């Protein structure tokens, strides 16, 4: 939503770009030649009716599903063949719509696990308990505590992740993704199940995080008014195709978008909310 972001986007190369991305499941074409470019520093929204292919797109971007056509580019380089963990090491992190926490680990351990791949861990060091290992562990723990602080999870550090309340689980999911030190954060329906007040907090949180961690954010959401406030730009998917791309204002008035959302009730794109 900031003018600065839209101005600079013209000059810089996209952080993430998907070109003509398609995904076929058996007879079903879940994504049909979708192209989107996300500029560094922006908050980019992805909306569309159920089954439009939004999460599928995330899965292709993060490398969990192979595309049946098209390319995924990171800072201009093709990463389509890279496995998920390598993409994460490049700076791409995500949360999951259905929350995939490490339920058997503690809250703190969930973050430690995500912090580990960032440093070179020699198993020998770990095995022998060398000074280098302890130093690395200490650093990881410091960072983990900072993140817990930032997301208000400090009191829950020792709790098993599987025992947390829903709202806390959502925040842990985000904290864990942040722990991997990303440049791009993919958020899959982070506001699901939150009440309006919590949605507001989430909005503010995402903006804070963008600031503090120099993030670019790509966010799927069902609650369209939330994205209208939050996003610099948005894309709309329907039946696996990109039917609109532009600023929230442009999207709000796009007839194809309105038609796609026809009958989806108070969350329709046609509604203007503060």
């Amino acid at each position: 939503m900031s003018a600065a972001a839209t101005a600079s986007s013209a000059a810089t190369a996209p952080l993430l770009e998907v070109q003509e991305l398609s995904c076929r499941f058996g007879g079903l074409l879940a994504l049909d030649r979708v192209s989107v470019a996300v500029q560094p520093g922006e908050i980019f929204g992805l909306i569309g009716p159920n089954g439009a292919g939004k999460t599928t797109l995330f899965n292709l971007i993060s490398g969990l599903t192979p595309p049946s056509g098209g390319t995924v580019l990171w800072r201009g380089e093709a990463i389509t063949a890279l496995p998920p963990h390598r993409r994460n090491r490049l700076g791409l992190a995500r949360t999951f719509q259905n929350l995939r926490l490490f339920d058997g680990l503690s809250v703190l351990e969930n973050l430690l696990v995500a912090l580990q791949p960032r440093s070179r861990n020699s198993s020998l060091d770990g095995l022998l308990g060398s000074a280098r290992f302890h130093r690395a562990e200490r650093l990881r723990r410091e960072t983990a505590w900072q993140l817990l602080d930032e997301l208000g999870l400090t009191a829950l550090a020792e709790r098993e992740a599987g025992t947390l309340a829903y709202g806390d689980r959502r925040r842990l999911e985000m904290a864990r993704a942040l722990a991997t030190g990303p440049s791009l954060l993919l958020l899959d329906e982070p506001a699901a199940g939150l009440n309006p007040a919590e949605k507001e907090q989430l909005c503010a949180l995402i903006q804070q995080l963008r600031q503090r961690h120099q993030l670019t954010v790509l966010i799927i959401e069902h609650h369209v008014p939330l994205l209208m406030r939050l996003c610099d730009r948005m894309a709309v998917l329907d039946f696996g195709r990109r039917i609109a791309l532009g600023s929230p204002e442009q999207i709000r008035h796009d007839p194809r978008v309105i038609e796609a959302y026809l009958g989806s009730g108070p969350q329709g794109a046609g509604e203007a909310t503060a």
Partner: protein
Amino acid sequence: MIETLLQTLLNGVAGGGVYALVALGYTLVFSVLGVINFAQGALFSLGGYLTFLLMGGRIGVNGALPGWGLPGGLPFPLALLLAAAASGLVGLLVERLAFTPLRRRGADPMLGLITSLGAGVVLVNLLQILMGAEGYAFPQGADALGGLPAALAIGGARIRTIQLLLLLVSAGAVLALPLWLEHSRQGQALRAVAEDPTTAQLLGINSEAMLRLAFFLSGALAGLGGGLIGVSVSLPGPYFGIGYGLKGLAVLVLGGLGSVPGAIAGGLLMGLAEALVPSEASGWRDALAFAILFAVLLLRPGGLLGRRQLEKV
């Protein structure tokens, strides 16, 4: 030359038919429940021993009741059918003991692999305790086959009648099953539950009943196979079923998990491949099935005709 070739072919197809039986049993349960029933091999053994006992065979000296046997004996076809039915019933018992408790607790269905393995182990070892570990040969006299000659001459080759029977019965079962699945109401209901349990429920199909039907049929198929092998070869010991069970797994993967035509094709291929192993290398024959399995898993995990399963993210 022709004679050996014909014999080899017959061996291959006959053996393949039995493998297909076992694999079909797995497929039925897998398609409805999504899990492999590891007790299948044990049911195979059970079928063999039940057929033996029903034909009037006597328990040997190592068993729990030495010398015991049914007064008189049933003719082979009847004994086989009853044994198959009884195996089907035990299959239901396995479902009740190994799978239902997991479902009730909402546990990971994959645990069914482990519990059914346990059930199979219990069954095989109970058989061992009852029958002893010795080998049993079926009565081979003229009566055994109901008056048919022990061997027939076909195209200049002498074929053991029992092998022909084995081929015919297994072929019959293997072909009847897909037909039944396609065209009968029960069969279609079963397939519906396999495809989409929720919708099937909405359509009023009792998926619990279909599940039980699947287990019954699966057990019956295994029992049928065990009886056929028992009569045509012998019963080397209760563990022989485990071997068939494991090879049946190889066939299952070869043909593609959940595919009925795949199980049949895979079974035939496996049977032929084994039959083609020269007798000098017969010791390695057992490894062939698993080597093929290995190759399939690594090259084409979906199997020949299976559907690729994508994990829902």
